[in-house]
């Protein structure tokens, strides 16, 4: 689990006193993350007119006045209005700027910055570093933009993480799907039980109830021997899914003349060799039907038979 997603999910103990991501961000993020860096500044000898043009061009409402990188003061839009009103618009800024303005340090948290905005009611703060050099300027809008930006990024990360989880889950599901398929030749008594054996192994590994395992194995085995004894050949497929086993036995003919009769216990058309080997009890199809949760058989003379059976899987009960 990565830390971002656990933060978003608010899992476990944090669930009780859940803190929103935005709340976390205002503590995590610093003024330097939100401020406008390398702000446009003016010098103490620049005229108020110069500031007025700067504001007009850049749509600023405040311009810091610096000398050698050190903050001397700030000229705001109110100062410019006053200057125009009172006729000192062509005088240097050092005469009319607000001196030693309140600043924020670049390492302050955003939560502290918000508190300072509330406390002073200013529209902006110059930001200085540890050696009192001007490094930026910050407005409430900058803080909002920064938070929105970071929230978006977290959301994107969460979506990406979710996508990865979904992909992993899909891969897991696919891995849990095992297909066992064998071609079966007519009269090949020695190969009987191949699919059934492999299937039993997978089901045992998955901790499936022995009774359920046995039923699935019997279906596969009887279906295999049916193809060996009665058909010119075919194919058997066992698909093991998380919740069930699906067995399809498809042969190439000759087909069952009377399916109802074939489903009757004791009725067999097996030849002498099969009978000698212990087959031909006339119980194959009835056994399959009895062991199946879903049982379908379609047969057409001259074309073949498709037997479809499903067994629902249950885990073995834990014995204390």
């Amino acid at each position, binding site marked *: 689990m990565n830390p971002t997603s656990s933060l978003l999910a608010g899992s476990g103990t944090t669930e009780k006193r859940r803190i929103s991501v935005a709340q976390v961000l205002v503590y995590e993020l610093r003024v330097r993350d939100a401020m406008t860096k390398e702000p446009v500044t003016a010098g103490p000898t620049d005229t108020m007119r110069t500031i007025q043009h700067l504001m007009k061009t850049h749509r600023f409402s405040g311009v810091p006045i610096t000398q050698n990188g050190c903050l001397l003061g700030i000229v705001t839009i109110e100062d410019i209005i006053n200057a125009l009103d009172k006729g000192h618009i062509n005088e240097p800024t050092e005469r009319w700027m607000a001196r030693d303005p309140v600043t924020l340090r670049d390492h302050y948290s955003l939560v502290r910055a918000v508190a300072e905005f509330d406390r002073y009611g200013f529209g902006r703060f110059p930001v200085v570093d540890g050696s009192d050099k001007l490094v930026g300027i910050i407005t409430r809008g900058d803080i909002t933009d920064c938070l929105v930006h970071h929230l978006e990024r977290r959301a994107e990360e969460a979506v990406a993480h979710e996508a990865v989880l979904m992909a992993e889950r899909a891969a897991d599901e696919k891995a849990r799907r095992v297909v066992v398929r064998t071609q079966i030749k007519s009269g090949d008594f020695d190969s*009987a039980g191949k699919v*059934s*054996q492999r299937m039993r192994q997978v089901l045992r590994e998955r901790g499936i109830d022995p009774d359920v395992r*046995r039923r699935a194995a*019997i279906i596969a085995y009887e279906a295999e021997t049916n193809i060996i004894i009665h058909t010119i050949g075919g194919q058997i497929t066992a698909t093991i899914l998380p919740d069930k086993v699906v067995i399809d036995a498809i042969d190439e003919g000759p087909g069952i003349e009377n399916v109802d009769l074939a489903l009757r216990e004791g009725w067999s058309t097996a030849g002498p060799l099969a009978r000698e*080997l212990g*087959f031909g009890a006339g119980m194959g199809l009835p056994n399959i039907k009895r062991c199946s949760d879903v049982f379908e058989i379609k047969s057409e003379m001259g074309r073949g038979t498709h037997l479809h059976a499903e067994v629902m899987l249950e885990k073995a009960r834990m014995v204390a």
Partner: protein
Amino acid sequence: MNTQTPIKLKTLLPLLQAEPLTDTDDANLTGCYISDLLSDVLAYARPGVLWVTIQTHRNVVSVAAMKDVPAVLITCGRKPDPQIVMEAQEEGLVLLSTKLTTYEAAGKLWEAGIR
């Protein structure tokens, strides 16, 4: 029926005049089932029983494994091919051979209290 207390297979060997073809280890039996028809065994044999049959084909091993039958007694002096004995050994299935007929073996087992 296999409601009885398990009986150690080893204790039955002299009685059945049985020759072990595989390791007998200490298989426990909870009853007996007699049939020469594989589907019949698949349908009705319960797990844990001794299966008595004259069949010696490799399918005996498959069916026994499928039904969790721990041991098979082959009667009338029949013996499967060594290849099949090996397969049984690998599956952990006990194969026994006896000169007795199935009927005689059944009688002995009944006398021994196996129900």
